[in-house]
């Protein structure tokens, strides 16, 4: 894998999610698109701590010579751990709000000028 593979993957996921956010009208699919964007951001953040040949930042006996520089940067991983957990909480809350929207409006499509009126 090329050195830029993970960054590229993250950017592609962000763009896929962004396209979804801009075009989708279904609330649940919108939340899914936001989740894809979030995954892309997390991948890029973790990839900034990685360099070719980097080891998992868990201290063991196999690291010789290069010392601590041989490990991947642990700080982005620690920050992304926080981001993932908070993303989970906000996604769950967003899904519940979408559920309530669907129950009160009778549809899970977001309204707009071009949208036909909803028949109950």
């Amino acid at each position, binding site marked *: 894998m090329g050195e830029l593979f993970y960054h590229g993957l993250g950017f592609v996921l962000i763009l896929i999610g*962004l*396209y979804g956010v801009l*075009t989708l009208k279904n609330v649940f699919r919108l939340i899914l698109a936001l989740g894809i964007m979030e995954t892309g951001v997390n991948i890029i953040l973790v990839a900034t*701590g990685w360099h070719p040949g980097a080891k998992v930042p*868990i201290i063991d006996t196999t690291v010789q010579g290069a010392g601590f520089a041989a490990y*991947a940067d642990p700080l982005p991983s620690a920050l992304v751990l*926080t981001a993932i957990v908070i993303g989970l909480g906000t996604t769950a809350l967003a899904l519940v709000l979408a559920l309530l929207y669907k129950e009160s409006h009778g549809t899970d499509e977001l309204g707009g000028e071009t949208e036909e009126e909803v028949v109950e």
Partner: protein
Amino acid sequence: MRQTAALLAVLGIGWFFYANAMAPGAGRGLTDRRVPSKVSMAYLSKSVSQDNDTVKPGGRGYEDGSANIVTAVVVNYRGFDTLGEVTVLFTAALAIALLLGDRRRFTRAKSGTILGAAIPLVAFFLIITGSYIFIHGHLTPGGGFPGGAMIAAGTALALLSSTWKPSHTWVKVLEGTAGMLYVLVGFWGLVKYGSFLKNPLATGSLGDLLSGGFILLIYILVGIKVGSELSGIVMNLDKEAE
């Protein structure tokens, strides 16, 4: 029309990403890192407030005894941040409970033999594996959050069958108790050393199960709290409108 505009916006932002972060030449700031930064080196060498030339498994007396550096950063060096993270998750769970709490649970038909027999078994092993992950958070990849998520997956499976219903009351009791104990561990550091969430226990020998001081204690509490919190969210989502 809408799709075309969206596609143009996506392509424009994609070009921006490429030109600034990935294209060869001037804009390689994001990807030209070769070694961990200065802050991360201090975390990796366990020498934020003291000097260590080497950190080895079996070594003693480091300022943080956790072999897994990500765990050391999350629970010890940035412990206050993790307390805030747990609070955010708690707030989300509380909001979901407020929105859906007064609804009835789905009434399910009696599950068949295979579903009824398999689900408690699979859920049992999920809970055991989740507990293993959060107990070994300072030695192996993982920790309280993934372990708790795995336990909640066990609860979600259990809700699919009618053979075993986890008790919502107990989930709430576990969640509240674990959260309060986490804050109390923080106050223990405050009383002993004068700073909140400072490690009050001996760090032991790096690589042992009982190393890392209060990391094991906190990750067990976080595992229980996140597991019961996410189980509570799943149970709240498993309800129907009147």
